[in-house]
């Protein structure tokens, strides 16, 4: 098990299976089809992201450097949370970008109920993204500590 310390963007404690994107997550391209056509698994629809394309994002601890793409990104994340199709958590190796920050903050401020919560931690460092692999177990603590271990 390895522990990484980040900054809390949206607080929460959760454990989930890791899903890793080494490139920036294009939020609109990744979520649009899932939100549009009622896909509860939130299957990633971004053909330009080989790490995530076709994989379930809902309920996973999504590990990534940053988000990219359209400035609708924040409101798309907000919608994913509102519909209960969000990742279990978002874990950024870099300091968070303005689009993901908007989505994380809007969801945390405006949405109520456990089904819409999404803890977000940023600034976990490059080593975090080098270490974490799809399927690893992730535990996120309230203070921004992220525990990563091999699958059981």
């Amino acid at each position, binding site marked *: 098990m390895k522990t990484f310390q980040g900054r809390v963007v949206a607080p929460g404690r959760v454990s989930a299976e890791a899903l890793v994107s080494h490139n920036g997550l294009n939020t609109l391209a990744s979520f649009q089809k899932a939100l549009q056509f009622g896909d509860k698994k939130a299957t990633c629809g971004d053909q330009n992201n080989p790490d995530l394309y076709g994989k379930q994002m809902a309920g996973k601890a999504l590990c990534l450097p940053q988000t*990219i793409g359209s400035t609708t990104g*924040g409101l798309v994340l907000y919608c994913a949370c509102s519909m209960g199709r969000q990742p279990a958590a978002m874990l950024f190796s870099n300091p968070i970008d*303005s689009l993901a920050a908007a989505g994380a903050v809007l969801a945390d401020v405006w949405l109520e109920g456990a089904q819409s919560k999404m803890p977000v931690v940023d600034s976990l460092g490059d080593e975090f993204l080098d270490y974490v692999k799809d399927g690893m177990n992730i535990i996120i603590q309230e203070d921004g500590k992220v525990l990563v271990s091999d699958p059981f």
Partner: protein
Amino acid sequence: MDYKVKLTDEQRAILEGSKGETLAKVMESLVRYGELFGATEMVPISSKFNHLVTSFGLKALGPVYELMDKLLEAGAPSGQKFTVDPKPLDKNVPSSFAQDVVFKLFMYSRQKDYEKQLADLGLLSDNAFTCTCYMDEVGNKPGFGEILSWSESSAVVYANSVLGARCNRNSGIIDLMGSVIGYVPKFGLLTDEGRKADWIVEIKTSKKPEAQLLGSAIGMKVMEDVPYVIGLDKWIGNELDDEACTYLKDFGAATASNGAVGLYHIDGLTPEAAKYGKDLIKEGAKTYVIDDAELERVYNEYPVIWKDKDAAPKLCFMGCPHMSLQQLKDWTDKVEAGLAKSGAGKVSVPTVFTAAPDVLEAFAKTPYADRLKATGVITSYICPLMYMNNPLSEKMPVITSSNKLRTYTSARYYTDDEILEQITQNRKGGRA
């Protein structure tokens, strides 16, 4: 909760609920958003109008429309009138029966309701749907130093760079919340330090670089940093005339979409570069040299995601971001000349030129409008991105000279000359 952002008594009172729970949440959203980027204070928005990125009644964005309803119910419309990005539908643009069904019944089924919501919130006019709100014909053109709460990436980079206004690369909804409350957090591109250049970009090409290709190269290299571009004034002059502004519109949109640039300086041309010169460059700035070979490399590395890479194009989109009046006139001349050369009467690929409704109205009053119509080119106010962003359209072989459209959709990029050749000479342009 304690925040590092310094709040005035009025702002703190709003945060604590003096104007109701909804406005308290709006203030909390903006303060927490600013905190993440080290904002020092909340500063008043000083532009006359706002501009919103969300122009589409997309079924998938239901929760956003519910949030907007909450603002309206709380008696909290936008404090400023606003323009908004282009509409996603226009019957003038060719589409199949299946596309029409998908567009109207599935994707944009909330369009009519959403447009009503925008009107209630403070939409400037029925014509206010464009990504190029800063065109003279539209009239949402902020002045030097004005503070904005915009989020459309191509408009933000234009307002910061060409007009000298100050705006961060915000997300949709944050843009509206700023003008509801009247303040935005001060950080990043709102500060003098945040407007300094991290990169020196030296242009050493043998001819005028294609705006959308140069912007793409710089965007992919510097990502969200600020570039200071040296040597471009040799090709586009030292005056912000119509031609230079049009060039910078397309150049900037490519830097913002292929990277995440919110501000660039052009040595000897853009207002802050003209005023402060190389003092804008940070100590230790990195250097990126762009010559013909570098542009060639960037062009050749664009992936072609068409299933059949040799498919004949079924549609051509020009105008992402929307074209200027002068661009429409220039392209009328170019298309006519191309058709005269080939002997063809009309364009061989269905072609759509997109521009702001106000620009199209101005264009319609010129003799160019009938001439362009005679070539077979269609004009529209649509957002090409919204047209392309669905499973049916993404299977179509669509060509464009917009590097923004290339980045976000399956559309294939060609230079302006190659596009002209394809639509007027019925020849496949570009490289193999």
